[in-house]
């Protein structure tokens, strides 16, 4: 890779600039839009940058109880679903990676099938079931399906990770006088933690992003998540959506994603690719 011809080097540079533009330009666009005043977007503002940047939209969004409530719902539901899903997935992935049991391939195929499942097909029956069980428009009403739909990804990612762990080290530690709990806690947990963590990030992204169930199984702000709340936020004039405020909400809800990506980019890439393609 080191000995590249000059022509190639230029091509790579151009590619680099194009990729950066591709990834960051739309983000810059919503940030720019979030600083335009309501008057400016109301009158029509076709240029990219705001004429007079203002923080008014941020104030309005943060003072909007519906939005802050949705933000709390999003965080709560996504975090709980992530923790529970990762716990169950860890148990299953451990079994898949380390134990021989009948139906192993079946479990993996089932997980794959569910990952491909058309979520919308479940909306009707789930709506019916959830109203019967009193789960409609509640946190658990979203947490349960989010767990089911993130389990496949978590199981695939984790079993790929677990397969790489040198499990003999557990016995080695026991031979050296560690109790089995110590061996587990001091040897296995540190080795498995990165994989578990990666699965958790991917699971969180899914729950944070989910939209179909969020609009179908909720009816008020008591459990509506941010994507759902945003899609129903039309403002007073249905023909002129509150562009700037929606852009502001977009920026705020994207911040956690950017923070996670900045901190854990290496882990996320490893997780995304290990689950699907591994040589």
């Amino acid at each position: 890779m080191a000995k590249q011809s000059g022509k190639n080097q230029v091509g790579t540079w151009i590619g680099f600039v194009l990729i950066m533009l591709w990834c960051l330009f739309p983000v810059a666009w919503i940030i720019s839009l979030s600083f335009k005043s309501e008057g400016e977007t109301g009158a029509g503002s076709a240029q990219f940058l705001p004429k007079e940047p203002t923080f008014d939209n941020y104030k309005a969004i943060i003072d909007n109880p519906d939005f802050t409530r949705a933000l709390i719902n999003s965080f709560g539901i996504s975090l709980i679903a992530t923790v529970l899903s990762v716990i169950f997935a860890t148990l299953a992935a451990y079994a898949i990676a380390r134990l021989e049991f009948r139906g192993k391939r079946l479990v993996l195929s089932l997980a794959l099938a569910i990952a491909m499942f058309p979520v919308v097909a479940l909306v009707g029956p789930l709506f019916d079931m959830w109203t019967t069980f009193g789960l409609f428009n509640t946190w658990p009403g979203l947490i349960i399906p989010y767990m089911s739909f993130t389990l496949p990804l978590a199981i695939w990612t984790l079993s790929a990770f677990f397969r790489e762990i040198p499990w003999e080290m557990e016995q080695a530690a026991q031979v050296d006088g560690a109790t089995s709990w110590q061996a587990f806690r001091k040897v296995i947990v540190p080795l498995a933690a990165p994989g578990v963590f990666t699965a958790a990030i991917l699971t969180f992204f899914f729950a944070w992003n989910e939209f179909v169930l969020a609009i179908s199984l909720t009816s008020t702000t008591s459990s509506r998540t941010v994507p759902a709340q945003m899609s129903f936020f039309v403002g007073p004039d249905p023909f002129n959506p509150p562009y700037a405020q929606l852009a502001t909400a977009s920026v705020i809800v994207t911040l956690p994603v950017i923070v996670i990506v900045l901190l854990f980019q290496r882990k996320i890439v490893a997780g995304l690719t290990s689950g699907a393609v591994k040589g």
Partner: protein
Amino acid sequence: MTATMAPEKDVTKAAKRAASDRAQAENRLGLKLVAPAVVLMLLVTAWPMIQALYLSLFRYRLTAPDDRAFVGIDNYLTILSDDQFWKSTLTTLLIMVVTVAVELVIGFAFAMVMHRIVFARGLMRTSILIPYGIITVVSAFAWQFAFSLNNGFVNSWFNWLPFIADDTNWFGDYPHAMFAIMVSEIWKTTPFMALLLLAGLAQVSEDMLEAAKVDGATWTQRLTKVILPNMRAAIMVAVLFRALDAYRIFDNIFVMTKGAEGTQSISFLTYRQVIEQMQLGLGSAMSVLLFLSVLLLAWLIVKLFRVDLAQARGEG
């Protein structure tokens, strides 16, 4: 010879019995560990699907629960003879084929750049994960506003192109609206495609490429004869994942057009039947059809392209 073999046989038998006891215990433990996950996955998918199968045989509208009656396969006949159903299926397939094809080309180019780049690898990885991590609804809004007639920059920046004018209404007719929807979809999901392809690219041996180069193979020859065949598994897995995901497209359409101008996808149509019209009977029938079409699609892709997921995972 047989005399010396006999005792050995006994030993192996005993060992086998002990091994099979252990194997059974392992089998039980394995099943116990996967059970909670399996139950959870089935609870929210298989059980409602069975319910949908049952409900699909009834005339049943939530707004008129007393009017519920068994109608057999009437719901299916109604749907299959409906124009809207076929139009939205066609729209969905069109979105799927175009977006996956474009993503494959751009994603491959991105993967090549990321594979070769020697500087700023972390920065690039971080940037490419942003579209991947961003909420689809946010992506839809960003592009809806970019294409907006009054507040978007697309018209004023690209009005030098023959088919774009200052007053092009991107949400006023089918082709324009479809274009805007596809742009949002492609923007958000190309990074995922690129990362999967990058992982495949990393498996193509540098030695083989070097050898091809020494033998005088041109860049195109190296691409088509060495690189692509060697990352076939990765490409197929990426295509399978993305195609099935694109077939479920919903968020972008919901936000950008609300299904106007004939841009309803099959998922959107199902959602409308169930949630907006409260047609549980008819909607359930659509759910069943949607489920079956995804199965069919997955089967077709796996058969046509001979995708081997186990092989792609290195399980052999």
